[in-house]
């Protein structure tokens, strides 16, 4: 079930999602990482980072909120300990990078992009831009574009650079286009939706960070819609789809909408073997539907759309 994603051929179409698999090691008891398309790492930053105070999570109907604040050991520790482990284990690494300024992203690309075992970079642009009153890069096409262009320039050509988009925008196609025009080889979508839970006992926000990111099956219809819209507008741009995938049929929805590969995130908390189980279920679902190759299913829901069906606005 080879899954071409930009310039790399993944041996399989299902990956972990950033922040939902650490750097892979902790999932080793539950699944064979080498069977996955790749491990997408928790977003790495230049320096070690404590993240936010707890509570960092709240369960929500068919989903959860998180507000981790990008806790991590920094790029040096990642390169010294985590990447070598993945390499030795024989797993492919898609390294997610995050920063607070264009320069930080650029520096990360420089440090990480050329390392052995790095299959691709995923650029997490759902970060506040400290140079622009904390506006999130992913919510501003121009800011997103500067990050992607800086990262693309510092990264070896053989390593694809994916821009990870936020659904919290009026027009995701506009941001997608800006990233691609700036050099992104592909797009990852979606990151979490900004949400909030209020604790009805303390009468205060449930998360120390007040707002958090909503993920899990609850957001899947938004993910499918985003992938669909971007695929329709930019048919040739590779897409790594994610958001609420729990079963092989969920993954198939994203694939039919246009995803070239699929990441499994929050479902891993429910079932630590989820990424591999989803991949197995997806393979079976494709076979049952008569798809000879995985790639035949990519974007298939766009074809032969009955004409009376026009994309519309609800209610």
């Amino acid at each position: 079930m080879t899954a071409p994603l930009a310039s790399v051929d993944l041996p399989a179409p299902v990956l972990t999602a950033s922040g939902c698999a650490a750097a892979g090691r902790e999932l080793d008891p539950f699944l064979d990482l080498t069977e996955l398309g790749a491990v997408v790492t928790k977003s790495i930053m230049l320096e070690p980072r404590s993240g936010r105070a707890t509570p960092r999570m709240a369960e929500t109907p068919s989903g959860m909120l998180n507000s981790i604040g990008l806790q991590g050991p920094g790029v040096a520790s990642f390169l010294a300990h985590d990447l070598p482990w993945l390499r030795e284990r024989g797993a492919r690494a898609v390294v997610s990078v995050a920063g607070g300024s264009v320069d930080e992203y650029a520096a990360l690309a420089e440090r990480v992009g050329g390392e052995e075992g790095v299959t691709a970079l995923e650029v997490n642009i759902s970060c506040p831009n400290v140079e622009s009153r904390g506006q999130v890069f992913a919510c501003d096409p121009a800011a997103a574009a500067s990050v992607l262009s800086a990262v693309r320039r510092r990264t070896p050509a053989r390593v694809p650079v994916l821009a990870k988009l936020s659904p919290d925008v009026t027009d995701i196609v506009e941001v997608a286009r800006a990233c691609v025009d700036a050099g992104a080889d592909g797009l990852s979508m979606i990151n979490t939706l900004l949400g909030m839970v209020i604790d009805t006992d303390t009468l205060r926000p449930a998360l120390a960070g007040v707002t958090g990111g909503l993920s899990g099956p609850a957001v899947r219809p938004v993910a499918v819609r985003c992938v669909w819209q971007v695929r329709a507008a930019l048919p040739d741009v590779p897409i790594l789809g994610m958001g609420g995938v729990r079963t092989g049929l969920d993954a198939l929805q994203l694939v039919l909408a246009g995803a070239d590969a699929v990441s499994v995130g929050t479902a891993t908390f429910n079932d630590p073997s989820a990424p591999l189980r989803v991949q197995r279920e997806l393979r079976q679902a494709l076979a049952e539907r008569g798809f000879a190759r995985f790639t035949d299913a990519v974007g298939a829901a766009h074809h032969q759309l009955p004409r009376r069906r026009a994309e519309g606005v609800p209610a």
Partner: protein
Amino acid sequence: MSGGRPVQVRAEVLTLRPVGDYLSLTLVAPGVADDVRPGHFVALAVGGEQSSMLLRRSFSVYRATPGGRYGGTVEVVFAPHGAGTRWLAGVRPGDAVDVVGPLGRPFALPAASSGAASCLLVGGGYGAAPLVALAEQLRERRCRVDVVLGAASAGRLFGVTQVRRYASSVSVTTEDGSQGERGRVTDVLPDVMRRGGTQAVYACGPMGMLAAVTAAATRAGAVAQTAVEEAMACGIGVCMTCVLPVVGADGTTRMVRSCTEGPVFRGDRVRWADVGTVPEGTLGAPVAGGHR
């Protein structure tokens, strides 16, 4: 992670019975039971296939019986509380429950070489669950075992009878005085420690209790191992939700995962007063003008 590699199994409910205000759930979970040590926990999926509850619920293992008639069982004791535990309270023998475990780092036993230590076990409410097996194992190592169990009321005490087999002394406190002495475990600790010549303290219960027990242990020159309870999304170390500020051997405070580096921590390493914050000076903490 210390102890067995965790496994994931579709366990079968063997029994569910009330124990005071709690429920005790025994699961046929071969593989999980094989390598459980006191302080390990298991994470149970709740609500069935079409559940809106995505996150597992964590419970200390009270008893694990590898092999035997059922090929391995684990027993947990829980308080029906929110939606997930209420669902668990409704399972019936034969139902399936998905289990991941054993998880976390268990209590460290005194090195066999260091001879028989005098140990004090302190449990709050269902926090007593992992202490019963711990008492047994310490006893096997010929340690002296004193036990203090406390709860809000008699119904929320657990393990008093079970632990007697292994304990030199068992003290009980309840806040409403409905069983044992009226008060909190910390009220009786100094006395018990003095009488027992306590060298090592093992504690499991609410954070506030763990902080107080650690303080009492430190005052008495004993080392405390505490099993904490932080909200966990994954239980296996991949999500970073379950952290608390812990001082490392190098003196640096880090936000540390309680699911994989814990739940058992040396009490004097946990910055109890700062739980729920990122204390200044923590590795990677935000600095003025820095990250949020």
